[in-house]
């Protein structure tokens, strides 16, 4: 544990407490990992017309995390969440932001929604399942606050 972390009041043997409420690690959402297929390939896009975007920050410090892989999948007119061409990864930019253009997300199992995951070694795994406000929306966003693994 670094001196800075100690100074910030980290405590707890198994899960560190974070001083700043706003920068608690994001918890995985219910159903977030459904139809997850590890190792989605890095892609330029998964089609056109819809934007999945967001940011990745470090828990506690809020520092933007660059070059972090975010895996994304959702149902489109090409097929459901198990359709391989609906799975892809992107890396976060220097400012911690990421974006992926894809085909329009369509309702699946009754709700228009996307799945995003961080599932690599450096930080704790997180699965997100943001629900779109409407099936007509052309974008959806999700933000990760990651805790060190």
């Amino acid at each position, binding site marked *: 544990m670094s001196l800075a972390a100690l100074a910030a009041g980290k405590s707890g043997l198994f899960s560190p407490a974070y001083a700043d409420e706003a920068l608690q690690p994001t918890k995985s959402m219910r159903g977030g990992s*459904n*139809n997850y297929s590890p190792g989605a390939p890095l892609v330029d896009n998964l089609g056109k017309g819809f934007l999945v975007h967001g940011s990745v920050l470090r828990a506690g410090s809020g520092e933007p995390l660059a070059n972090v892989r975010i895996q994304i999948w959702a149902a489109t*007119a090409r097929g*459901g969440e*198990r359709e391989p061409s609906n799975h892809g990864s992107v890396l976060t930019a220097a400012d911690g932001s990421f974006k992926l253009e894809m085909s329009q997300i*369509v309702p699946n*199992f*009754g709700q*228009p929604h996307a799945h995003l995951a961080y599932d690599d070694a450096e930080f704790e795994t997180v699965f997100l399942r943001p*629900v779109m406000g409407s099936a007509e929306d052309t974008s959806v966003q999700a933000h990760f606050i990651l805790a060190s693994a």
Partner: protein
Amino acid sequence: MSTLGLALINRIRQLLQAVCVFVILVPFTLAALSPLQSGREIEYVAGALAGVLALSLLFIQPLLAAGLLSDISLARARWWHRRVGVALVVAVAVHIAGLFLASPADMSDALLLVAPTPFSLYGVVALWALVLTVLSALVRYRRGTRVSLWNALHTTLTLVVVGASIVHAWMIEGTMNGLSKTVLCILVVLASLGTLVYLKSVTAVSTRG
């Protein structure tokens, strides 16, 4: 019953028969043609359409039980009611199995009451009310049940099936055409409540002495 009353009842039966054909064919066809079926595996399509069919069958069921669909004997109509009940169970089974095969994780979340979607709970409630309906019907068949108890039990359980199914279908954003879903849900409610009112009034007349 007077000749006029009989003629009126038969007119109503003919009308309801026509509505039944509409109710079975239209929502199913529109759902099958939905753009949301695009690219979907057959299990998902079958699961979704089976759900639509189950909802349509909920319109027919109470009308059959009350003899409101045909001038065949009430006993015969209730024979059909039991057969359609089996069809309903099969439709619900295909709905669940198809969706489970399409996405085991999503369906098991729903069945275990941990799905993130609000409508899943209503589907599971409808499912268990349907299971209890079938079990209680089997008990009645094998051991017999006091009529008053059977009426109370069956009415309550089937109202739960109908109510929960409608809420379930209503909240889902899926392959059902919006207008067909609205009309079908209203018709299902009318069929259930209308049948109850009709049966109560018939009983009242026949016990008036």
